[in-house]
């Protein structure tokens, strides 16, 4: 549906807008990125990776090099990520299902940077979620859900408060808890050590889980993906227990969320790590 909207917008945008250059640039991105729901035929047989200039890894489809939607050469900073992306392209059977290629999507976003933001802005955007963090908002009733939230969410909250030595707290008022400025400063400082690629992944995870606490808990390897997704959907799970599970809504959402979250977490880890193997000296 979004695709047809963009197509409809194209002719109007060009006629009405006086600032034509800027609009066409935006539209070019919009049209290219709108192809996410379109399924294209698989046009290649072999997928391979090769190391190009500067040690960056490239993806080859048959003999052509993969490019990003923005037209840049697709490059990945390390072998693991490149293999992950190549496996995604290899996994497509007859048609290309872009909506299932999460690692590719994340790499494209990091390479093209369609929103044109820098690291500082991304950190601010990510920390905005702290004000409305899922696990800081509690309900007053029913009693069993209150208990469930307390039992499941409090340990994670305590863990992050201890780990970073900050105060977050929880609240059942509509305004949420008062989060002190020092807390945000601590997190800002922590996130400053992340590079652009990791921040792209981290912001993606935060927006998926709707929670900074859960995202950081998972990136710091305190939670597994399944646990983080479960905690993020806690109220939904509670309702499912009460009213029953509907496969084409609940399971569908859960698997999609899990896949996206896992891709984001893996993306953060792979793009921030620098793996060095140190061998111990042989002792005779």
């Amino acid at each position: 549906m979004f695709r047809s909207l963009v197509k409809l917008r194209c002719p109007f945008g060009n006629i009405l807008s006086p600032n034509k250059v800027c609009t066409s640039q935006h539209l070019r991105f919009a049209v290219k990125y709108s192809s996410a729901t379109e399924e294209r035929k698989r046009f290649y047989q072999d997928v391979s990776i090769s190391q190009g200039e500067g040690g960056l890894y490239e993806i080859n489809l048959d003999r052509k090099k993969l490019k990003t939607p923005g037209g840049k050469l697709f490059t990945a900073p390390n072998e693991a990520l490149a293999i992950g992306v190549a496996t995604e392209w290899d996994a497509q059977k007859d048609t290309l299902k872009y909506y299932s290629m999460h690692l590719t999507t994340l790499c494209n976003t990091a390479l093209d940077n369609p929103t044109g933001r820098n690291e500082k802005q991304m950190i601010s955007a990510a920390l905005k979620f702290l004000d409305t963090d899922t696990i800081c908002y509690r309900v007053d009733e029913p009693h069993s859900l209150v208990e469930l939230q307390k039992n499941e969410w409090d340990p994670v909250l305590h863990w992050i408060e201890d780990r970073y030595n900050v105060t977050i707290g929880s609240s059942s008022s509509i305004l949420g808890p008062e989060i002190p400025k020092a807390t945000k400063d601590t997190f800002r400082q922590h996130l400053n050590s992340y590079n652009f690629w990791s921040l792209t992944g981290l912001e993606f995870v935060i927006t998926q889980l709707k929670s900074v606490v859960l995202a950081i808990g998972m990136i710091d390897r305190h939670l597994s993906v399944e646990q983080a997704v479960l905690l993020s959907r806690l109220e939904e799970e509670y309702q499912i227990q009460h009213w029953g599970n509907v496969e084409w809504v609940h399971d569908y959402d859960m698997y999609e969320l899990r896949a996206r979250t896992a891709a984001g977490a893996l993306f953060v880890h792979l793009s921030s790590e620098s793996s060095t193997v140190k061998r111990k000296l042989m002792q005779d």
Partner: protein
Amino acid sequence: MAALSSPIRVCRGILKELRVIQGPTYKRSLAYSYVMDQFRKNKVTGERYCRAQQEAHHDSHTYLCLLGSTRSHLALHKLYHGKGDRSREEVAALVGLRLPSQPGGKGWEK
């Protein structure tokens, strides 16, 4: 620390997913050799490698989750959401109606 299943199970799980993706020739794929390589490297063998074992374990678990969830998601997508809108006949059948098979019935008399 998150409770993860044992490394050997994660490894088997990833290989199973790769086989589903790539068919019987999966042993020749890039991912297969990389995964096997990583699992062999990060075995605790007399502290030869300094990389934290839990770190690699968590990442492999995450990758398994990514592969498995994507597969399940695509299966559900194909089953319930992959066909687009229903046709007019199907929509009518949903509420127990049938479309007239051909014009010429009531209302079409000349």
